C-alpha cells in the first residue's frame, strides 16, 4: 500500500482486523500498513471505528479476528517493550491533575528512563506554564502537553487520536509542524481526525472509515480523483440554453452555475471556449478536483440514503 523505503516490515501492519463489542462489530476486516516516516490518516465520523482500531494497535484490546503488528510485534503481548518505542496522544490518556507541567514531563521521561527534556515544552509553547498544575491548564494546553510528552520520548511510532480539537489556529499549526518534524525524523504517525483539511495538509495516505470498514484508501490525490471535480461560476449574461455540451452534470442555483464532472480539463476548455465565442463573462470562476470534504460529504450522503432505504 505504501512506497516508502525502510525496514523490511512496516512500522504498523494491520491485517483483516475485526473488533466486536458483544454483537456489535466496531471494526470490520480493516487492513493498512504504515511505514517509518509516513503519516497515515484515519478519517471517519464518530463511531466509524477509528479509536477502536487505535486502541487495538496500542494493545489495549484484543482483536476478534485478524492481526496487528507494531514494529513487528504483537502490541497486546509486548506492551512494555513497545511502550519505550511507541507513543500515544489523544482521548485515551490523562494526567495527574495535581502535578505541575514540568513535574509531569519529568515523570514521563523518568518512566522511559530518559534524561530530563524540558525543551519539549518549548516545542509546544508551554515553557511559560511549566510551574502551573495540570488541573489548571486549558483544554488546548492539555493537548499540547500530551504532544510534548510524546515528542520527548522520540517515538518510532506515534498514534495521534484527534490531537487538535479545541486548539487555536496558531497551536494547531504548531501541532502540525511538530507532527511533520516527527515524520521527517522517521516516526511513523497514525493520525485519526475529523478535520479533513488536517489530513489533506499532513497525510501521505488516508483511509476513510465508515461503520467499521475502510471505504476509501490512497493518497489524498487518489481518493479525491475518484470523485467528480467541480467547476463553479457566475456567467453574465447567462442563458442556460446557450451552454455548450458538457460531459459533467450541471446545476443552477440562482445566478451560480455548478458543473460536476469527471472530465475537468475537457469541460473547462469547452466552457472557456464558449465564453470567448459568446462574450460571456465567467465571474467567480473556480475549478478544481474534489476536496476531501466533498468526498466525505458524498459518502455521508450515500450512507444516509442507504439508511432511509
Amino acid at each position: 500500500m505504501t512506497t516508502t523505503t525502510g525496514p523490511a516490515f512496516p512500522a504498523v501492519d494491520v491485517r483483516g482486523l475485526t473488533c466486536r463489542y458483544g454483537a456489535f462489530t466496531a471494526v470490520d476486516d480493516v487492513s493498512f500498513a504504515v511505514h517509518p516516516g509516513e503519516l497515515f490518516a484515519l478519517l471517519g465520523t464518530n463511531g466509524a471505528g477509528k479509536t477502536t482500531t487505535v486502541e487495538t494497535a496500542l494493545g489495549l484490546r484484543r482483536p476478534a479476528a485478524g492481526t496487528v503488528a507494531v514494529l513487528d510485534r504483537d502490541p497486546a503481548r509486548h506492551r512494555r517493550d513497545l511502550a519505550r518505542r511507541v507513543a500515544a496522544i489523544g482521548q485515551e490518556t490523562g494526567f495527574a491533575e495535581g502535578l505541575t507541567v514540568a513535574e509531569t514531563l519529568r515523570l514521563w521521561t523518568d518512566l522511559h528512563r530518559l534524561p530530563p527534556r524540558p525543551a519539549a515544552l518549548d516545542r509546544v509553547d508551554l515553557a511559560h506554564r511549566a510551574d502551573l498544575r495540570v488541573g489548571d491548564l486549558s483544554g488546548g494546553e492539555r493537548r499540547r502537553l500530551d504532544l510534548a510528552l510524546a515528542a520527548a520520548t522520540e517515538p518510532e511510532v506515534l498514534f495521534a487520536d484527534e490531537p487538535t480539537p479545541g486548539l487555536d489556529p496558531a497551536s494547531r499549526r504548531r501541532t502540525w509542524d511538530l507532527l511533520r518534524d516527527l515524520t521527517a525524523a522517521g516516526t511513523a504517525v497514525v493520525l485519526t481526525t475529523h478535520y479533513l483539511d488536517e489530513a489533506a495538509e499532513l497525510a501521505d495516505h488516508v483511509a476513510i472509515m465508515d461503520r467499521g470498514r475502510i471505504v476509501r484508501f490512497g493518497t489524498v490525490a487518489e481518493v479525491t480523483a475518484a470523485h467528480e471535480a467541480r467547476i463553479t461560476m457566475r456567467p453574465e449574461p447567462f442563458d442556460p440554453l446557450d451552454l455548450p455540451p458538457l460531459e459533467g452534470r450541471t446545476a443552477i442555483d440562482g445566478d451560480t452555475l455548478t458543473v460536476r464532472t469527471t472530465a475537468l480539463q475537457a469541460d473547462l476548455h469547452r466552457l472557456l471556449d464558449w465564453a470567448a465565442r459568446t462574450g460571456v463573462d465567467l465571474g467567480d470562476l473556480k475549478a478544481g478536483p474534489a476536496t476531501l470534504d466533498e468526498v466525505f460529504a458524498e459518502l455521508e450522503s450515500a450512507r444516509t440514503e442507504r439508511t432511509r432505504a
Partner: protein
Amino acid sequence: MTALALAVAETRLILRDRTVLLTAAILPLLLAVLISRSGIAATAGAPGALAAVQLAMLQLFGLYTTTTMTLAARRQQRYLQRLRTSPASTASIVTGLAAPLVLIVLAQAAIVLAATGWATDSAPVRLDLLVLAFANGAATAVALGFLTASFTKSPEAAQITVLPGMLVIVFGVFAALTPAGETVALLRSAVPGAALAELTRLAWDGPEPGTALLAALARPLAVSLAVAAALSYLAARLFRWRPRS
C-alpha cells in the same frame, strides 16, 4: 527507578490533596489517639490489644480507604491509563502508587505505638514480629484497596464502596482479640484485619504462657499470607486501569 519516580509523584499528589491528606494522615492519627484514651486497653486486658486496635485503625483508614479513594481518582483522571501506556511494569506502578501511603502509615504507627508504650509503661517483646505484623497487614490492606477500587467508579463512590471492607476489617480485629477455640481461631485468621491484630498482640505481649512463639505465630501468619495472596490475585484479575466507557 520507575517505582521511585512514581512514588515521588504520588507523594506530591497526596501532599497537595487536602481530602486525601486528611484521610491518610490526620484521621488515622486522631482515631489512634481517641482509642488510646477510650479505655479499650483495660477492657482487652493487655497493652498488646490496644496496640493491635490502633495499628488496625491506622491501616484501615490510612491504607485501605485511601488506596481505594486515590486509585478511583487517578483512574477517573485517566492517569492510570497513561501509566499503563508507559514502559513501567505493573509491579512498579503498584509499588509507586502504594509506597507513599505505606510510609505515611508506618511513620504514624511508629509515633502512636511509641506513645502507647510510654502511656502503658510497656514495650513490644518482639519488635521484628511487630514489623512483620505491619507488613502483613499493609499487604492485605493495599490488595483489598485495589480490589475495592475495581468496583469503585469515582472517589465519591469510594465513601460507599469501602464500607463492607471496613466492616470486615473491624470484625476481624475484634474477633481476633476475643478468646476462641482452635477451629474458630483458624477461620478468623482468614478475615482481613484479624491476623494483623493477632500478630501485633503476640509481638507486644508475647505468647500465652506455655505456648511456643513459633506455634502461636504459624497459624495467623500462614492463613493471612494466603488471604493476602488470594486478594492480590483477585485484584490483579479484576482491576480496571481505564474508566468504564
